[in-house]
């Protein structure tokens, strides 16, 4: 269990950017963290993997305390963070070496490192980038490489800090599907920080930060209605989902869970509505 108990944080001489936040993510569960720019999302991500220490409250990873210096390395091994800006994370010369960096540093033998690299390249469909220089990749390619690198370490909890923000629509759906596949395989827990309701539709629960405090927490299905009531300016498929849920109460429950919200999943939910207007197929 990755747990935050009444956690607050302020940068030196700054105001509090995280205020009394409590949350928990078990292995196999998925939590979406949404919020506006400057809302404290990235700070929260850094607290979760022990990069920052809370000024109040506790961060616990499988019972290990983040403020305990002896536990920090173990926590970093358990919690894999994908940085918001890929350039903060990419250090190796080639994509292949970059993905192998984490596994090598975990002390795995070369054959296992190679297997992890091959697997990551294949799941994220980036075999063609294998020998390319990390620093000459496009922004979206860099982002995919950073996600692949963290998964190659097989952490127990993965924290994605806006890891789809630099990808185009198709690439975003592909990345979410790859993440989904690896989570199902490894049973890792996920914290998915994002501003896109479409992407975090793959999560079970959602939390929205405002000014560092939790403004919403609950089942992600309740989020479109809450965002609408609060007057959030949604766009694209999120706006359509929210409007449909307004005219057809409970519509969100017809939209397939566990994957990104896409034209295909929304169209399937609408077809289900036409075939079965009263009931509403329960989604998996």
């Amino acid at each position, binding site marked *: 269990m990755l747990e935050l108990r009444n956690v607050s944080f302020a*940068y030196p001489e*700054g105001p509090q950017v995280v205020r009394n936040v409590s949350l928990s993510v078990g292995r196999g569960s998925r939590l979406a963290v949404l*919020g*506006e*720019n*400057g*809302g404290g999302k*990235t700070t929260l991500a850094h607290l979760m993997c022990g990069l920052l220490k809370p000024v109040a409250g506790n961060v616990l990873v499988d019972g290990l305390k983040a403020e305990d210096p002896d536990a920090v390395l173990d926590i970093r091994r358990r919690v894999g963070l994908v940085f*918001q*800006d890929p*350039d903060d994370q990419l250090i190796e010369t080639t994509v292949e070496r970059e993905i192998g960096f984490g596994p090598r540093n975990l002390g795995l033998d070369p054959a296992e490192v190679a297997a992890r690299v091959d697997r990551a390249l294949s799941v994220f469909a980036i075999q063609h980038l294998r020998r390319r220089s990390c620093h*000459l*990749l*496009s*922004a*979206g*390619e860099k982002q995919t490489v950073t996600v692949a690198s963290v998964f190659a370490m097989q952490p127990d909890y993965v924290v994605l800090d*806006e890891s789809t*923000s*630099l*990808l*185009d*629509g*198709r*690439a975003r759906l592909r990345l979410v599907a790859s993440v989904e596949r690896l989570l199902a395989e490894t049973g890792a827990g996920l914290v998915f920080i994002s*501003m896109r309701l*479409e992407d975090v539709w793959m999560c079970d629960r959602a939390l929205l930060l405002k000014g560092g405090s939790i403004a919403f927490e609950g089942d992600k299905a309740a989020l479109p209605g809450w965002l609408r009531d609060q007057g*959030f*300016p*949604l*766009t*694209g*498929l999120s*706006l*359509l989902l929210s*409007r*449909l849920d307004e*005219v*057809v109460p409970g519509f969100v429950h017809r939209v397939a869970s566990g994957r990104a919200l*896409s*034209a*295909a999943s*929304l*169209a399937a939910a*609408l*077809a289900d*509505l*036409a075939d079965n207007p009263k009931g509403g197929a329960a989604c998996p």
Partner: protein
Amino acid sequence: MPIAVEHLGFGYDGAAVVEDVSLSIGQGLVHLVFGPTGCGKTTLALLLVGLLRPQKGRILVDGADPAGKHFNRQSIQLAFQFPEVQMFELTVEKEISYGPRNFGLASGAIRERCQWALDCVGLSADFLGRDPHNLSFGERRKVALASAIAVRPAYLILDEPLAGLDWTGRRSLVAVIERLKAEGMTAVILTHETDLVGEVGDMVLAMAEAKISGPRPVKDFIYGDPGPDGPHVPEFIRLLRLMESSGFRITGRPHRIEDVARAVVASIS
């Protein structure tokens, strides 16, 4: 034509990013340049503002070479994809006023521009005294945009301006583009976020395999060839096509997201 691209060729290490591309960008319109990750949008942006020189062909902005020595840099401004690349001042106020200051505006006018630009991007005046390097990614992005527009360029080039912006930031961006368009500015927005066409834009250009097609009007882009499965068709338009093929009747040919939402709701009632 205000921006003319003639037989443009550019590549890195022999791999072509653009090859024999000719196009023109009309004045006073908002242009969306769509292309998948890695197709060369940033390279095109750098070429348009003269930070890279064409290897073949030429680019003319109001008849002048943007990479030339005597080019009037005030006329075209670029907001970079990664805002930290362009930040170097110690306060937000200095950062935003850097352009106006260097183009010789009076101090009163500089202050005015600064406040106007900050207001346009939806940041409060409290930000003026803050260190841009201590802001969040999204806040830095807003400051970068404010710096670019503070110069009041005739042409504004935005490289992937939505990445990292929150809902209100996105709405402010659309509003600021519309506001500047009303004042006669020409905008070129390079993005993979094809959904943006549901909110803003007059013309669409599409990049793929070292070629750029267009510009063509938004409606023509969405409802013309190559049709609904073209690589740049936004998800919400794809949804309309999928709905039609399963028997829903969609009235009209909506392309702005609010109209699409109305059409979708109408089709199920």
